């Protein structure tokens, strides 16, 4: 068990180092040297831009040797200094991201957990009802094939425009300021529901398919065969198969995270929902490289935390993981 966790933690630490290094490396070594392009954009321009120019030269430390640029990058990182946003000048990137993160998590965590629960149950039901399976399976495949953003647009068009039930932009009405009241919470939820649904629905497809296949696979296992020779009720067999099939689905949570994040980013854009994804896109459109880099780091850290949580949950659930295997000397 220690070995399992140890290896995982090592991978996560290396991942973080790798990501930070990449984050530092790419702007400096991409063909055409984007930093120089960026810096030159501000040279010889009016006052405010001149401030920007000197800031950029300093921030990238272009006058220093590479290794010290790299070390400084790490030091700044640990101080929480992710630079200044250009698009929202002069707000620090960290502050911008801090504002955005609750919105992203508020969409993401419920959509992942609920779709996981609903999808797995749907899949388990499909695995034992052939009729339902033959109808549901094709639908599920097309649902997982749908780009999140398109499902978002579809929902926005029908529920937001044609039937005009839900608002389709922002996290709350322009007339309101964030505060704790029924009015605001109601308004917030109304804005939240459509982006949530588009994330929720697409994810259900994947979980349902995965669970269906896993349950069918489990039902062919020898332990199920033996239970059948003992004449136990179908209920117990299904319970065992479901519990064992759910284990790979827990690991699947970590593996799916990448696609879900991609979906999250685009969905936020469709609904102008002010989370990390929306901020990131604004950063891209405005060539705000500090902001882009900051978003990247935030996403990585989030993913690492999520992966680690999944590992802990998995270890608690599966006794088999406690026994490690060796290799050749």
């Amino acid at each position, binding site marked *: 068990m220690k070995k399992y966790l140890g290896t995982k933690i090592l*991978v*996560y630490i*290396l*991942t973080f180092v*790798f*990501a930070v290094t*990449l*984050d530092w490396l*790419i702007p400096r070594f*991409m*063909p*055409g040297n*984007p930093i120089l*392009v960026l810096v030159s954009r501000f040279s010889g321009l009016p006052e405010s831009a001149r401030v920007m120019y000197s800031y950029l030269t300093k921030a990238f430390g272009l006058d220093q040797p590479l290794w010290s640029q790299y070390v400084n990058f790490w030091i700044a990182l640990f101080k929480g200094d992710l630079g200044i946003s250009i698009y929202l000048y002069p707000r620090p990137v960290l502050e911008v991201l801090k504002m955005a993160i609750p919105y992203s998590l508020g969409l993401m965590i419920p959509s992942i957990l609920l779709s996981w629960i609903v999808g797995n149950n749907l899949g388990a039901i499909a695995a034992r009802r052939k009729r339902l399976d033959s109808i549901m399976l*094709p639908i599920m*495949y*097309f*649902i*997982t*094939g*749908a*780009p999140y*953003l*398109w*499902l978002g*647009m*579809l929902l*926005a*068009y029908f529920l*937001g*425009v*044609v039937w005009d039930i839900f608002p*389709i932009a922002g996290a709350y009405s322009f007339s309101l300021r964030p505060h704790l009241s029924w009015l605001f919470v109601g308004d917030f939820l109304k804005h939240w529901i459509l982006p949530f649904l588009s994330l929720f629905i697409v994810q259900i497809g994947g979980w349902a398919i995965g669970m269906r296949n896993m349950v069918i696979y489990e039902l*062919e296992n020898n332990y199920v065969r033996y239970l059948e020779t003992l004449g136990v009720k179908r209920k117990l067999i299904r319970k065992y198969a479901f519990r064992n099939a759910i284990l790979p689905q827990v690991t699947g949570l970590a*593996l799916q*995270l*990448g*696609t879900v*994040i*991609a979906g999250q*980013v*685009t969905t936020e*854009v*469709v609904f102008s929902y002010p989370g990390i*994804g929306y901020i*990131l*896109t604004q950063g*891209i*459109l405005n060539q705000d*490289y500090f902001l*882009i*880099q900051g*978003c*990247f780091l935030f*996403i*990585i850290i989030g*993913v*690492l935390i999520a*992966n680690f949580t999944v590992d802990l949950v998995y270890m608690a659930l599966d006794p088999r993981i406690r026994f490690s295997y060796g290799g*050749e000397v």
Partner: protein
Amino acid sequence: MSEIMFFAFRNAKLRMGLIIVLFFLLLGIFGPMISKYQDPLDYVGQGYQPPSKEHWLGTTTFGQDVFTQLVYGIRSSFFVGLVGGGIATIIGLVIGFLAGYEGGWLDELLMMLTNILLVIPTLALLIIVAAYLPYRGVFIQSIIIGLTAWPWTARAVRSQTLSLRTREFVNLARISGRSHMKIILYEVLPNMMSYVFMVFILQFGGAILAAVGLDFIGLGPSRGISIGLMLQNAVLWNAIQLGMWWWAIPPGLVITLVVGALYFMNVGLDEVFNPRLREM
């Protein structure tokens, strides 16, 4: 072999998936020839027009023909799928084979790299690379998608290789004096062809989806048209709010159908290749 063909032909999922994919492939290839307008970005008529005889899928805010854009977009999607998916499959194969067959420190190293890249979300990686590119074209985009999408394939191929490596025919090839390279190419690979094909289909679909996402958030090709760019423009110019469904809905629908059909084909192929899954 003939048995496989028999089951392939009998498999409804495979047939249905293939028909949908082929339909759009042909549309992507011949669509630009049958559409009335040469340049998808040209202003060819009045804006805000719903579908009509003149404009099969209406026009955009700027009076561009949506159908023309769509067929060009499909063409570019298939291109990204082919190149991006192809590159990802090949890299995944090479790394998976090396790690799985050679084992030892090479395996440890390659798998460490693979696991790291698996943790990092592909889109995040794509963004950080694409955002700094001075010029972006469909080809470059396909390549970076291919360069970032291989890790799961490498891991899957490795575990397949590991299990094949313990088969005695690999040992027999070794005591027949075959080099590692030849064993991988002549003994291991042929046994995995069906699997490789399935991996490619998944990578193909994955690359198409990745490109749509990238284009949509503003990291698409600097010139030209794609499904993702169409969607981006639709959202940017409030096509939804203005009720222009012909602009907002069809591009995504095409992607959904193509990718869904690819997944469907994949399941069908799995049933064809794995007798255990065949329905009696």
